[in-house]
C-alpha cells in the first residue's frame, strides 16, 4: 500500500512539474511577444519624404548659374569630394557642407522635430554600399536631432540612388524617426 501511495505521489509531483515547466515556457514566450520592439517599422510616409527630398533643388551650382544641383546630385558630388575628386559649389562653398545645410533644413521643416512635437528625434544615414559583404559600407553623411528615448514607436524608410559613374554599388539613404506620445 505504501509503495502504491509513493508511486501516486511521484506521479502527482511529475505532473505538477510538467505543468510548471509548460507555464514558465508560456510566460517567457508571452513576455517576449509582448515586449516592445525597438526595431523601426517601415513607413511609406518616410520613404516618400526621402524620395521627394532627393529631387529638391539646392542653392549649389557647380559649373554655372542656374545649373543648380538637386540633393541626390549633391550627395554624389559629396561622395566624389570625399574620394579625392574635390568639388566646390560656386562661391567656394564645400559641397558636403552645402548638402548638410540643405538636408537639415528640408528634414527639419517637414518633420517638425522637437521635444514637444509629434516627432521627438530623427536620424539620417547616407552611405555608399557595394551591396555585398566583402567591402564595408562607406559613410557619406550622418545627421541627427533629438534623442531616441521614450519613443512610442520608431518608424523608418529608405531610398536608393543609383551611383551610375561609380561602377558597382549604390548610395543608400535611411531615415528613422522617433514618434512621441
Amino acid at each position, binding site marked *: 500500500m505504501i509503495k502504491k501511495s509513493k508511486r501516486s505521489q511521484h506521479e502527482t509531483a511529475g505532473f505538477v512539474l510538467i*505543468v510548471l515547466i509548460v507555464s514558465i515556457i508560456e510566460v517567457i514566450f*508571452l513576455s517576449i511577444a*509582448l515586449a516592445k520592439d525597438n526595431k523601426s517599422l517601415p513607413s511609406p510616409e518616410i520613404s516618400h519624404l526621402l524620395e521627394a527630398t532627393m529631387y529638391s533643388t539646392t542653392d549649389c551650382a557647380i559649373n554655372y548659374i542656374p545649373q543648380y544641383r538637386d540633393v541626390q546630385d549633391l550627395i554624389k558630388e559629396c561622395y566624389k569630394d570625399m574620394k579625392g575628386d574635390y568639388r566646390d559649389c560656386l562661391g567656394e562653398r564645400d559641397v558636403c557642407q552645402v548638402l548638410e545645410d540643405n538636408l537639415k533644413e528640408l528634414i527639419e*521643416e*517637414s518633420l517638425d522635430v522637437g521635444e514637444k512635437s509629434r516627432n521627438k528625434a530623427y536620424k539620417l544615414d547616407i552611405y555608399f554600399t557595394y551591396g555585398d559583404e566583402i567591402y564595408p559600407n562607406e559613410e557619406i553623411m550622418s545627421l541627427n536631432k533629438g534623442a531616441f528615448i521614450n519613443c512610442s514607436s520608431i518608424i523608418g524608410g529608405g531610398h536608393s540612388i543609383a551611383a551610375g559613374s561609380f561602377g558597382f554599388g549604390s548610395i543608400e539613404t535611411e531615415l528613422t524617426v522617433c514618434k512621441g506620445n
Partner: protein
Amino acid sequence: MKPRKNKSKEKLPKSEFLKKAQLEIQEMAFMLLAVFLFFVLVGMFVLTIVYSNLNQDAARIAEERTLSAVVSLADSPELSCIAAKSNCIDGDKLITMIRKESYQDFWPFSSLKVIKSSGFGKNEEELIKCNFANYPDCDLFVVYDKNVENERAIGSYVAFCRKEYENGYTFDKCELAKIIGGTELKTKG
C-alpha cells in the same frame, strides 16, 4: 497503464482509505489548476495576437492603401512632372487645375489639396491660397473641396517642381510639398 481496480469494492483500513482519497483530491486540484492556468495563458496569447498584431496590421494596410492612392495621384498624367521623376507634381500643371469642379467626380477623394514646404507648420488660416495672381509665392493649392463633414485626410510627401528662369536659362526648381487627399468617413446606421 494498469487498469484501475474498483475502489468501492476494495477493503482498506480507514486511515489508508482516507490517505488515498486525499491523494486523489490533491491530484484533481492540481489538474484543475493546470487546466485553469492553461486556458488563462491560451486566452492571453489569443488576446495579444488579436489586439496587437491584427489591429496594427489592418490599420497599417488601410493607411498604405490610401497612401498609395494619393501617391498614384501624383504620378497621374494630370499632375506628374515632365522629367522622369516619380512621386513628383508639376506646379505649372497644378495651378491650372485649382477650383476645377469637374475633377470632383474624377478622383475618389472628397477633397484634394497640395501644401508647399513654405506652408509647413502654418495654421490653416495663415496659409496663402494659390491663384494665378500670386503663383508661385503661395502655400496652398486647393484643387477641389466638397466640404464634407466627416473627413479623414491622408497626406504624402511629394516633390513639387516648376520652371524657373534665370540668367537666360530655364531650369526645373523643385521643393518639398505634401499632397493631401480627404476621404469621407461613412457612419453606420
